[in-house]
């Protein structure tokens, strides 16, 4: 056998068995390196997501099922809803501490905070920026409270105890007027964001320019920070954020056109660029004659089919809620689709936040319905997203 192997090696052109073995090792070493690198690379890409994904999947498992939602909807009054939530550890810690709506928002903010803390570095910037949502929400609540003349306790009940401005909130709530609140923001990034909106507020006394400037700042920067796709994960994140931006823009234009507003009236409130709907298309939509013109202008985008259906309902009722529900539902469906696309990457985190937003929104709908008279169980179920 040894002779036959030696003959084969010699016929292959190797001067000796040792030379053949040396060449064989070289080839094996190269093959081994190629195999190891090509198999390890994709595995290492998914490695940073394994820990955060397990955590968010644990939280996803604690979200309410349809059956549990039915039980909450069937509660006789708001106290029963609160009692139900007291039995759920994620909500229990906030329910007795805050009014119900604030408790729900605090739980949602905690979920965003968790994801921002545990997400891997390449998506951290976007999720960290997303936490400004709570700063903006708190500033908006304070200026609305000051405008409405709410007292200190009523104002505090509107604030969510999350975000980066928590230390400053105590000073802001003690302000007497909206202008004092705005002055109190010195030293933060917000005075610069509001520099165009403040003169408009001073001129009209309306809070809308201030609110819009802050909302746009959040969405524009989220879109920008997720716009440099390094890999599949950031690409999906950009899609998720981009859809939120597009939906925000479409809602503004539809509402404006329903009120017969023109291009110049709307421009200030728009986010300058979008995801599917880019700047030139936004201009075209803003110049549309009416709501039907906006809907037909969106032909060819993924928003067209659901808006066409909502248009039929709008023609009958003249209510914007058909568009708003269709667009909100689209955002949730898009989030769900994205969450299923990259199960070993960012998918579960987007899926979790998406489902959590939906859960909180549905709980708020139930809470509102239980506070007011005349909502049957069937009606509440109809209103849920």
């Amino acid at each position, binding site marked *: 056998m040894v002779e036959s192997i030696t003959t084969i090696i010699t016929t292959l052109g190797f001067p000796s*068995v040792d030379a053949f*073995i040396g060449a064989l090792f070289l080839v094996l070493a190269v093959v081994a390196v190629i195999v190891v690198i090509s*198999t390890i690379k994709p595995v290492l890409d998914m490695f940073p997501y394994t820990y955060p994904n397990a*955590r968010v*999947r*644990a939280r996803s498992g604690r979200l309410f099922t349809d059956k549990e939602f039915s039980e909450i909807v069937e509660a006789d009054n708001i106290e029963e809803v609160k009692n139900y939530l007291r039995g759920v550890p994620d909500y229990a810690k906030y329910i007795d501490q805050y009014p119900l709506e604030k408790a729900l928002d605090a739980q949602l903010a905690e979920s965003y905070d968790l994801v921002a803390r545990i997400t891997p570095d390449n998506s951290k910037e976007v999720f960290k920026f997303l936490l400004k949502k709570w700063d903006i929400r708190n500033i908006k609540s304070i200026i609305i409270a000051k405008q409405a003349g709410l007292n200190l306790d009523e104002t505090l009940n509107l604030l969510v105890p999350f975000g980066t401005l928590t230390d400053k909130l105590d000073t802001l709530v003690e302000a007497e007027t909206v202008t004092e609140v705005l002055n109190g923001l010195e030293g933060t990034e917000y005075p610069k964001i509001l520099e165009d909106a403040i003169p408009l507020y001073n001129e009209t006394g309306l809070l809308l320019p201030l609110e819009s400037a802050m909302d746009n700042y959040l969405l524009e920067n989220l879109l920008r920070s997720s716009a440099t796709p390094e890999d599949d994960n950031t690409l999906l994140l950009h899609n998720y954020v981009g859809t939120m931006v597009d939906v925000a823009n479409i809602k503004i234009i539809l509402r404006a056109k329903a009120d017969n507003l023109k291009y110049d009236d709307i421009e200030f409130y728009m986010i300058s660029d979008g995801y599917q709907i880019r700047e030139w298309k936004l201009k075209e939509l803003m110049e549309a004659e009416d709501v039907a013109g906006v809907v037909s202008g969106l032909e060819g985008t993924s928003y067209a089919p659901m808006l066409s259906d909502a248009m039929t309902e709008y023609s009958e009722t003249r209510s914007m809620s058909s568009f708003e529900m269709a667009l909100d539902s689209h955002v949730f469906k898009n989030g769900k689709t994205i969450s299923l696309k990259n*199960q070993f990457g960012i998918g579960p985190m987007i899926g979790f936040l998406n489902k959590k937003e939906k859960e909180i929104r549905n709980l708020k709908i139930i809470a509102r319905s239980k506070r007011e008279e005349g909502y049957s169980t069937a009606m509440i179920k109809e209103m849920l997203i």
Partner: protein
Amino acid sequence: MVVVVLGTALAAIGAGIAVGMAGLGSGIGQGIAAAGSVGAVAEDPDMFARGLIFTALPETQAIYGFLIAILLLVFSGIMGGASSLTTTAGLVAIGAGSAVGFAGLGSGMGQGITASSAAGAVVEDPDMFARGIIFTAISETQAIYGFLIAILLLVFGGIL
């Protein structure tokens, strides 16, 4: 000084590939499974035992590689006792080591990914435990193929 012939030296390389590659796959797989399990335990401390089971599963590939490496070392004469191997037998030993090593590399990483997902699925829905174990165990088959071929090579290649 112990004189090591070429055949025995080749068997030693085979042993190195067996335990090295299998250990690499097993280590990466176990790291992925452990990261997922730690995440699950952070949210639900009752997941500790189940997380440990999922983390332990990708260990088997390293055990297969270790066993083949020990057999190679014992029967190649490098640890004394047995007679030295011929060059041909040494090449067979490299084949055996590569079989269990590379099979263990792929199997270990695959099993780690599945184990991590299964830990996530179980913490989301505890009823997923048995199904998670079954899915995770499927990746074991490639390592078993490699291990069986390595044993057959050792037996019929004249080493054992």
